[in-house]
């Protein structure tokens, strides 16, 4: 039996009907077509599905969509403003912080949540901030360099 789910995703309010067993990642990808969020291990280990729910990084494969009811979700699609990339996205490009790119959406969202809590993280804190995200190409150093560059203010957020 489907249930009503109201939530805001990237500033846009949605009302959908989902089976209770629907996971947040499924609601985003399969119901709303927001496929930027990746489904990796599907068991809370890899972090590819990380989104920001009510300001907190969470693994969307391990939350029922209904538990996000009434909440505000930010996915990777919500980072850019129009055609203007988010500072983190620009820094990831400049520092080559991708190899296959599968972890990127999750990495960006964990980094965004980290900078929201702590705008000037030290290197160790950046490592800790992306501790829940696995890059199977092992491209961690370039990711850490990209986040460091944003933290140092090398990429200003355009208003």
């Amino acid at each position, binding site marked *: 039996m489907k249930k009503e789910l109201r939530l805001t995703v990237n500033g846009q309010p949605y009302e959908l009907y989902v089976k209770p067993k629907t996971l947040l990642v499924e609601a985003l990808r399969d119901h709303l077509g927001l496929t930027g969020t990746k489904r990796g291990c599907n068991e809370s280990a890899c*972090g590819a599905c990380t989104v920001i729910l009510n300001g907190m990084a969470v693994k969307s494969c391990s939350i029922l969509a209904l538990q996000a009811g009434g909440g505000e979700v930010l996915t990777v699609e919500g980072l850019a403003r129009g055609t203007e990339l988010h500072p983190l996205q620009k820094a990831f490009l400049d520092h080559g912080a991708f190899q296959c790119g599968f972890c990127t959406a999750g990495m960006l969202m964990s980094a965004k949540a980290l900078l929201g809590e702590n705008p000037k993280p030290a290197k160790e804190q950046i490592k800790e901030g992306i501790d829940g995200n696995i890059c199977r190409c092992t491209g961690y150093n370039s990711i850490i360099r990209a986040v460091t560059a944003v933290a140092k203010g090398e990429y200003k957020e355009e208003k």
Partner: protein
Amino acid sequence: MIRDFEYFAPKTLKEALTLWDKYGDESKIIAGGQSLLILMRQGLVAPEYLIDIKGVSELNYIESDSKKGLRIGALTTHRTIEKSPVIQDGFIVLAEMERRLASIQTRNWGTIGGNICHADPAGDPAPVLIALNATLTTASLKGERNMAVEDFCLDYFETALEHGELLTEIQIPAAPPHTSTAYTKFNVIESDMATVGVAVSITLGSSDGICQDIRIALGAVAPTPMRAKQAEAALRGKKITDNLLKEAGEIASTEVEPISDMLASEEYRRELVRVLVRRVGKEALARAKQA
């Protein structure tokens, strides 16, 4: 693949208890679901009814009183505990434990009560809470019960909760003077559960430095979190030296009943207990001297 279920999201403890009492064995309680959803996805748990208590806000709090100690609502998230100034101030070992529990994402959504009720012997909070001499409160439509955290876990994934009963609160008593607690776990990947977890709490006499009380709690080495009571007895009433701690580690390694799995063999777990009891005991002792 998760099987379909009927879903309820009570907003008050009363509503939750009523539903839980009604659906009992056919249902499961979900809080943060960071453990349960994995089991459901693996098909190991397939409830007919899921009662989601994450929104029962009356069970989400941290309250502290210098005499009575700390009270933590069962639905407080790991991350809230980790970041709480009250806990960082007076119960730092809890914040240290939380900081190494799973990943930030999991700690943001998972709850302390859910972790304890999941009763995985490799869970981080239980050994620390047992070392801290913590108690807990359960509630059902019939009323409340109180018990020590060390009496709560009965077997692998089994707790003392009876039909219709929910864990509502964890209490940590204010520590006696010159008391301190330390915890560490051995794991290969930082965000993994413990291969072996060790928590040690030591109370020293005010002037003589004699060990008045000690609690050694171990995780992932038995069907439930357990105390190494013989190792404790070897230290209680004595002035703790490195040699005595070494001896306590050896005793503890014979008290445990670990299994072999993909993370470690039984022998290796015993070895870890031997080493970590000594190491964590040393840390707790150093802290107690300063407390």
